[in-house]
């Protein structure tokens, strides 16, 4: 009997069951896909690190053979060291190559920090071939087969890109360094042709028995290194990939919530519609439990089918979502996760059945008398007409009827309301994240000040080699004068990076920390959270995360060690920065630093005289100094964040598409249900002369109004959730107090209008059945 009833129900409520089925498939896809991705990403990082045999500790030093000898001697003696893998990177300046950035040529590592091609195979290069990481290829628009030319001394060399590689050490955009791989023969040829030993950077991949102890000992030696990185820190650079997987999970939870809301609505509607049948069944002695069984049987069939299909589809979906991660990482194959996806499917079935069991509880309370009395138990409720047409002024009848319907039966619209609110939240949160990442103010989160123009004059490596600060300052002045001659008045300054060892009285463990110093620019111009900007030469500011780690508060002394000597500094202020995953220092402009110890430059920044047309001035500067790389703030951010913005953009596109799809499905389901319920009234209005167009507009208008109200509440909820979610997201990258960039036209007008248009179009489509309604359906009125 159950099968017969089920068959009949599935046939009769085809549309409603189909949409419920689709929603369950989608929930299943997203839940299984989200969990799968999260586990895959977590495993992928472990797997990638294991396959690439990542060293426990990596240190890079530049230039001096004496330094190298010192480090190598110490490593030989140190008992904690298990193995050392030495790499050399040959610097080819930007102006000497066609790559677009400075190049660091390197031999393929054979023992540690291995690289793989896009098919996860080891890379072999013949003379004349070069391999670059996937992220570099995307950034510089290079494909396999392209040629990269460069000049070393008087030699012109041309190499063909053979492979794009997954580079565990330098593949993440957050590492901030990249390498290009060449054959041993080409490497030797370039090395021999290099005129200066300062153009060689040496890297040491070290396996140790105890990383923490080793790191401490290494730091205590005070080697003049440019940067050091433990395996744990390297893992943090891949955190964004985990974040995207986690984001998918959030979408799937929202979807599941929407499915439950719709399920609740469907069950309530079905029970209301079938109360007579239920009453009759009760009257002839069928128990409530057995009647419930009929409904549970139906939802079991729908949920099992939906969850199973969703679980199966989640595998290609998960693979698709993992594609962008897979480009950069050596990942285990996803096929093995069918079991996981099926388990997620089972979880959904269990959740749905539990929920259905609760929702069908009403059957127990439904009496035979209610069935006889057509669902009325004799109670009188409040007035059913909350608005008055004759008091509505000039309000068109269409708006009046739609608004009156919503206010008359608010509960009926709650599922739609909740679904739409969730949709708005799902769109606004990633949208704000993307806009914040793209917004001008994000530049300050990199620990630098926002300026009008950003310049790379390709002399950074030379300044570092010479160690001549006055030469750098003279160059800045010369540049200002050159531009001024052409009518562009710009004040320039340079931002220098150091990696001194840092310690405090309370935390004597030394750690190499990124320290920034602007020359020709006052420290008051930066954004601080607390305290006073460092003005005197022995003052500094540091990130909150670093202060917590060093266990210091404002006013305490911290120690920086650039060379051998430990110099005390007063900690005067805190700030926030994404740099170095949240651990960095800002030195005073007057701090006595030596360019010899600089690790790099953020580039020259500049402010135009007030009233200057920034874009016009920048394009003129490009004409005056065509060799320089000149960017505005937007371009600088894009270069700084690289593929991260694209990934967030992908997530945004995915969520917008999913939300529009879900909203459309929910709208169609509810419109069809409302049509079924309102068929008598529609027939009545048709009979007294209301056109099909009016009736469809009336039905659609109600949905549109709900969407509008939902947008308002969705924005409100997003506003509250922004702090919780986005701040937390940015917090992982090292900034806990991010100033959100909200683009009001896009967030409050553009996307809500898009959602509204999608919903109205779906509603209009779903109400097309009005045309076929016969006036005879008037007899279906209660």
């Amino acid at each position: 009997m159950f099968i017969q009833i089920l068959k009949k129900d599935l046939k009769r409520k085809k549309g409603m069951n189909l949409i419920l089925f689709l929603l369950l498939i989608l929930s299943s896809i997203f839940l299984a896909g989200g969990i799968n991705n999260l586990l895959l990403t977590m495993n992928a990082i472990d797997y990638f690190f294991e396959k690439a045999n990542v060293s426990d500790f990596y240190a890079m030093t530049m230039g001096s053979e004496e330094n190298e000898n010192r480090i190598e001697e110490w490593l030989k003696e140190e008992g904690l060291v298990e193995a050392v893998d030495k790499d050399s990177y040959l610097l080819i300046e930007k102006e000497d190559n066609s790559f677009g950035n400075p190049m660091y040529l390197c031999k393929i590592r054979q023992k540690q920090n291995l690289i793989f091609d896009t098919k996860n195979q080891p890379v072999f290069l013949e003379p004349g071939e070069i391999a670059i990481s996937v992220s570099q290829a995307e950034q510089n628009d290079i494909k396999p087969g392209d040629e990269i030319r460069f000049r070393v001394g008087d030699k012109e060399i041309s190499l063909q890109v053979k492979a794009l590689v997954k580079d565990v050490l330098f593949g993440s955009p957050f590492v901030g360094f990249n390498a290009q791989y060449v054959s041993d023969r080409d490497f030797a040829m370039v090395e021999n042709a290099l005129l200066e030993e300062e153009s060689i950077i040496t890297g040491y991949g070290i396996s140790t028995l105890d990383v923490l102890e080793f790191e401490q000992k290494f730091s205590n030696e005070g080697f003049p290194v440019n940067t050091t990185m433990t395996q744990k820190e390297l893992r943090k650079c891949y955190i964004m990939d985990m974040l995207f997987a986690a984001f998918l999970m959030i979408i799937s939870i929202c979807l599941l919530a929407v499915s439950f809301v719709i399920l609740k609505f469907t069950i309530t509607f079905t029970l209301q519609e079938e109360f007579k049948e239920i009453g009759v069944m009760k009257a002839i002695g069928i128990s409530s439990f057995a009647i419930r069984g009929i409904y549970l049987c139906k939802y079991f069939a729908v949920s099992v089918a939906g969850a199973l299909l969703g679980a199966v589809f989640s595998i290609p979906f998960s693979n698709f979502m993992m594609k962008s991660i897979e480009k950069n990482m050596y990942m285990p194959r996803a096929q093995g996760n069918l079991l996981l996806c099926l388990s997620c499917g089972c979880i959904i079935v269990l959740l749905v059945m539990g929920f259905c069991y609760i929702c069908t509880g009403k059957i127990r309370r439904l009496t035979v008398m209610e069935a006889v009395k057509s669902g009325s138990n004799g109670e009188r409720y409040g007035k059913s007409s909350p608005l008055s047409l004759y008091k509505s002024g000039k309000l068109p009848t269409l708006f009046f009827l739609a608004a009156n319907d919503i206010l008359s039966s608010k509960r009926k619209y709650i599922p739609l309301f909740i679904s739409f609110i969730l949709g708005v939240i799902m769109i606004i949160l990633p949208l704000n994240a993307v806009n914040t990442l793209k917004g001008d103010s994000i530049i300050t989160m990199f620990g630098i000040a926002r300026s009008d123009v950003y310049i790379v004059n390709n002399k950074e490596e030379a300044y570092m080699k010479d160690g001549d600060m006055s030469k750098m300052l003279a160059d800045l002045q010369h540049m200002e004068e050159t531009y001024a001659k052409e009518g562009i008045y710009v004040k320039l300054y340079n931002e220098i990076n150091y990696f001194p060892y840092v310690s405090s009285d309370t935390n004597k463990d030394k750690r190499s920390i990124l320290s920034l110093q602007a020359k020709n620019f006052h420290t008051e111009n930066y954004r601080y959270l607390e305290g006073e900007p460092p003005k005197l030469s022995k003052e500094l500011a540091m990130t909150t995360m670093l202060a917590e780690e060093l266990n210091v508060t404002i006013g305490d002394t911290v120690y920086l060690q650039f060379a051998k000597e430990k110099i005390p500094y007063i900690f005067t202020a805190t700030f926030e920065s994404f740099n170095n995953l949240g651990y960095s220092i800002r030195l005073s402009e007057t701090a006595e630093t030596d360019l010899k110890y600089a690790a790099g430059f953020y580039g020259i920044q500049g402010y135009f005289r007030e009233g200057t047309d920034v874009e016009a001035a920048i394009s003129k500067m490009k004409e005056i100094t065509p060799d320089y790389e000149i960017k505005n703030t937007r371009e600088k951010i894009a270069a700084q964040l690289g593929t991260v913005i694209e990934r967030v953009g992908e997530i945004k596109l995915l969520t917008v598409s999913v939300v529009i799809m879900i909203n459309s499905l929910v709208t169609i389901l509810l419109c069809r249900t409302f049509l079924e319920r309102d068929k008598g009234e529609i027939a009545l209005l048709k009979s007294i002369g209301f056109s099909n167009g009016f009736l469809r507009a009336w039905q659609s208008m109600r949905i549109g109004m709900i969407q509008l109200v939902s947008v308002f509440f969705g924005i409100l909820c997003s506003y509250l959730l922004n702090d919780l979610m986005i701040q937390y997201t940015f917090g992982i990258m090292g900034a806990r107090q991010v100033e959100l960039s909200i683009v009001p036209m896009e967030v409050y007008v553009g996307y809500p209008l898009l959602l509204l248009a999608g919903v109205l179009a779906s509603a209009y489509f779903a109400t097309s059945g009005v045309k076929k309604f016969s006036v005879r359906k008037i007899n279906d009125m209660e």
Partner: protein
Amino acid sequence: MSNSLAVKDLCKTYVMDKRQNNVLKNVSFTVNEGEMVSVMGPSGSGKSTLLYTVSSMDSMTAGSVDFFGKDLSHLKPKELAKVRLVEMGFIFQQMYMLKNLSIYDNIILPAYQAEKGRAGRSRKEINEQAEELMRKLDIIQVADNDINEVSGGQLQRACICRSLINHPKIIFADEPTGSLNKQASYEVMKELNRINREGTSILLVTHDVRVAAKSDRVIYLIDGRIEDEYKLGKFQAEQDLRDRERTLNGWLMEMGW
């Protein structure tokens, strides 16, 4: 007297499960301006289908319906809707009304819709006319009530108010007293006769001889065809009703009623 409605060779066929059901077979008749015509006949003879088809609520399979010079069979759905809204009024056996609106709002809704975008009556004038109608039909005291707060007779009178609010040229009534008790039926028919005397044509379907006796003419339908018709003349006074009923009953007996 000119025709308000001229029906010619009207056919209506329903196809159900590949079987044809010819409900109306070449039906032809007229309703003159200011005339009240009743349609009678046994159950399943096609009375309601005839009413729904000639009023354009349902499509016709063949034939034509001329309504004040307009051939309804050639009008588009939107034009038909406008004709129904502005020039026709409808009263059903069940007192159908929008449940989320008060009695007053249900009455004025078609008028507000009809005046949309036209420089016709203002909403204030519509409200005044609605109140006048409600007063005439003695339901002004329940104007603000919900539809479940009034009696069946009051609700049917509200339906009549709604059908009259746009000053229709004709009213179609499908067993308007079918769900009412004797007193309520009397009241409703009294109103219909009054409206008819004021010049509005009425085509009604009924099983009730007492109701049909108040009309000018009775059409008798059997198996989708007009079997015959009987002219009673204008109903003038209540004291004539018994005679009219008797004569009509005799004719109906002949028809096999």
